[in-house]
């Protein structure tokens, strides 16, 4: 499994699904083109499968600048137009502080502290699938 960070032109951010939820993990350095590709991949997945929720885990993201902020807001907006709800999980404290100072408060984005809470928020974390292990570990899905 290739690590989507550093140096070489990493290809795409994977868009794995857990039931009706897309579970996307962003990590390290995200090139602009990868972010835009991700936006397209997510909307395509929503259109072609019964997706009702999108979780974007940004706990591994060092910075969110206005470009990435715009892409995240647009992902949420386009997902909403396609009847799917987006939750942003795990923003680092330093990133939150910086975003406020940058003037980017992302009012349209639903945020939670971690992926587990994101799944709870979307209502299809553990309830739809009783025999599922106690904690849905996103890393296992990649």
């Amino acid at each position: 499994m290739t690590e989507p960070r550093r140096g070489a032109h990493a290809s795409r951010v994977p868009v794995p699904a857990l039931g009706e939820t897309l579970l996307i993990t962003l990590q390290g350095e995200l090139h602009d083109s990868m972010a835009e590709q991700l936006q397209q991949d997510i909307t395509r997945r929503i259109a072609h499968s019964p997706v009702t929720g999108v979780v974007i885990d940004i706990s591994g993201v060092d910075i969110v600048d206005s470009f990435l902020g715009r892409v995240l807001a647009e992902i949420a907006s386009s997902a909403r137009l396609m009847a799917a709800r987006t939750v942003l999980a795990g923003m680092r404290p330093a990133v939150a502080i910086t975003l406020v100072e940058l003037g980017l408060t992302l009012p349209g984005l639903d945020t939670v502290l971690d992926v587990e809470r994101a799944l709870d928020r979307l209502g299809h974390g553990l309830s739809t699938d009783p025999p599922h292990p106690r904690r849905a570990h996103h890393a296992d899905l990649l």
Partner: protein
Amino acid sequence: MQTSSDTGTIRLPIGSDVDLAWVRQQVRQVAAELGFGLVQQTKLVTAVSELARNTLIHGGGGQVEMTALYRGPARGLRLAFTDSGPGIRDIDQAMTDGYTTGSGLGMGLSGAKRLVQEFSIDSSPGQGTTITVAAWATGLPHPRAEAG
């Protein structure tokens, strides 16, 4: 008051989004070495990302020069982003929150200015643009104060 020397100047090209990622990584590494805390690093790298993207998108590419600053006990980093693009016609307007000529949110320049301690723009139509910023590792007195 002046910086002691320019010995540590690093010049990096800005010609693609891959370069942007590389510039961010280099700045973070140098800032960490100079003693910037995590929040300070994050602010500086975010400002750098905005400015480098400005150089790429609006300036048609260019370069950034990164220089470590030593003033007494204070440690800082100066970054000069240079392009030979069309220049900025109205700097005041370009510095306004929400003003954009591109596809962004218009927070790039004004937001970046809030994330650093020193900020200046040198630009005129047809002459390209140089934006110079500096940030200081805190925990130490700011350079504007008298050395203790």
